[in-house]
């Protein structure tokens, strides 16, 4: 498989102004040197706890947030170096589905306008054939075409998420960022949306960056998984290998913390202590050392670098290097 999008040492620092006349400036290192590749037709799961920078990374990858530094090569072009017309031409190829199906649809627009607007902007439809094109896409995501004149408030959460998916797919993207697309939904509806995403991905061979905090969902859906902690990717591996042979202590803790749905398999592990440290003031050395059960003195001072355990399995931990 060939690489569709390649992210190189991407960083995003948010300045925080404090004090009189904003004299003191601190920086939140939301994403701190991330490199990732996503192949054509691959689903890459991105897992991490709140505040680890996964949403920032996802949005940066389609240039919704300007990175502080780094490169994003999409189909051979560095999208950060493009001018506005160049970026606009590329936009249809990169789309996003948001977490909140209630907040991400304009309540004053009908479904026709919500789904159709982007197609009009990018010249993929004209006034005359817009309606039929919108109905076609609605049917593709399992919404009856007769709902075309309805407003978002007339739909349930699961249906709204289908509208969000339809809007993203209307432009035939090659790369789709799914930012926690099912975490606001109930279990039975979650399964519907996961199946839909999987089906569409297989049919259209889209590459997906699937951001989630739910390891079960990522495990089910993604080919490869990247684990993020405090702005850095600590482990990347094919999903099966990650679940069997997780190398990083944080990944292992995440997997152990997930409650098993088998009452016969009662967990006996010791929970990870402490909270995620503030990204304003991350710990020295390895960011995870404050919570790591296997931390040594080296971890407190020296930051680990990515180390390749096997082909496709990279870990950022002193235990292995």
């Amino acid at each position, binding site marked *: 498989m060939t690489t569709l999008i390649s992210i190189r040492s991407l960083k995003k620092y948010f300045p925080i102004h404090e004090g009189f006349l904003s004299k003191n400036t601190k920086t939140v290192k939301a994403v701190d040197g991330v490199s990732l590749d996503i192949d054509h037709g691959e689903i890459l799961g991105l897992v991490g706890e709140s505040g680890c920078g996964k949403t920032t990374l996802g949005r940066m990858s389609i240039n919704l947030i300007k990175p502080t530094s780094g490169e994003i090569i999409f189909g051979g072009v560095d999208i950060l170096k493009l001018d506005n017309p160049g970026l606009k031409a590329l936009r249809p190829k990169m789309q996003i589905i948001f977490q909140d199906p209630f907040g991400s649809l304009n309540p004053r627009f009908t479904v026709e306008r919500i789904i159709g607007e982007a197609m009009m902007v990018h010249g993929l439809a004209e006034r005359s054939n817009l309606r039929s094109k919108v109905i076609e896409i609605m049917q593709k995501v399992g919404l009856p075409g007769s709902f075309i004149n309805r407003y978002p408030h007339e739909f349930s959460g699961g249906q709204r998420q289908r509208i969000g998916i339809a809007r993203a797919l209307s432009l035939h993207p090659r790369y789709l960022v799914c930012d926690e697309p099912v975490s606001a939904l*109930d*279990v039975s509806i979650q399964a*519907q949306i996961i199946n839909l995403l999987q089906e569409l991905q297989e049919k259209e061979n889209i590459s997906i960056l699937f951001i989630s905090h739910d*390891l079960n969902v990522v*495990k089910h859906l993604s080919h490869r998984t990247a684990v993020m902690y405090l702005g850095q990717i600590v482990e990347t591996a094919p999903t099966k290998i990650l679940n069997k042979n997780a190398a990083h202590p944080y990944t292992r803790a995440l997997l152990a*913390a997930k409650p098993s*749905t088998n*009452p016969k398999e009662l967990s006996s592990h010791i929970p990870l202590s402490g909270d*995620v440290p503030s990204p304003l003031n991350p710990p020295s050395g390895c960011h995870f050392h404050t919570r790591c059960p296997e931390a040594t003195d080296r971890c407190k001072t020296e930051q680990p670098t990515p180390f390749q355990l096997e082909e496709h399995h990279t870990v950022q931990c002193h235990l292995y290097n």
Partner: protein
Amino acid sequence: MPTRPPLLHIENLTTSFHTNDTVVQAVRGVNLHVNQAETLAIVGESGCGKSVTALSILRLISMPPGRFDSGQIKFNNQDLLSLSEAGMQKVRGNDISMIFQEPMTSLNPIFTIGDQIGEAIIQHQSATGAEARKQTLKLLQKVLIPSPETRIDQYPHELSGGMKQRVMIAIAIACRPALLIADEPTTALDVTIQDQILSLLSSLKKDSEMSILLITHNLGIVAQFADRVNVMYSGKIVEEASVDSLFENPMHPYTRGLLNSLPKDDSESKLESISGAVPHPAFLPKGCAFHPRCKDAMPRCQQQPPLTNTTKENTHKVACWLYEEGGESL
């Protein structure tokens, strides 16, 4: 095991909300019981009435628009619904206490956490301020908050989400309640923090005789944490069983659907989802509320709501026509 009467016994509880043009029955004739020192889980999707059931027990439903149409809530053989408001205040936070889903908004931002934990102790045990502070420090240690001496004088905004939930738990267990109601206690928390809170709750449970009524939509937490489960759908309990029995042999099509829609460990196949969505509580379908989404629906399901059937051992109950005469054998 000697059989003691259940600590909490809810019979035929119906809670409804009256607005200008509609009546919504959020809880429709619920029967359930919580035994001494037992953890009972109520599982269901949003809007199924699980939180309203919990709030009804403590009578925290604002009236109007809320109303109890029928039923009894017996706690230690005393009907909570017929208690005076003053009598109810003695129960709340003392005999029965509650942890809420949102630790961020459930604490008062203008009081220190020491004040908020101490309040319950002063209210219910007529302790002095100094005694309450001493007990509060012990409680903070019990819920494993590091350096309690400094934390006790801090405000909620100085604490992380997991810490705040620990404070909520400290308030809840301050008066050694007989029953703790935990309404989605970990839904707002990250996986590793959820893990910490659940292990804290388990160790507290082991140390005391406390019963827990756990409300959740997470079947993993149910499997790991509860002794018995009630599955709720559209204001009714559709299945009741021990945890082992429910996960091994789910009977109601809804329960089966829920378990099948979870991503499995070993399969890459499609998830089996339940089609459609939960009906609006003001416009419930006739008959069994689940029939429009049910794969096994029969003509009868559209006409009459099902009765509750019990298996031979009297432990597994299900409300579904499939298990009536002529249906699947039990």
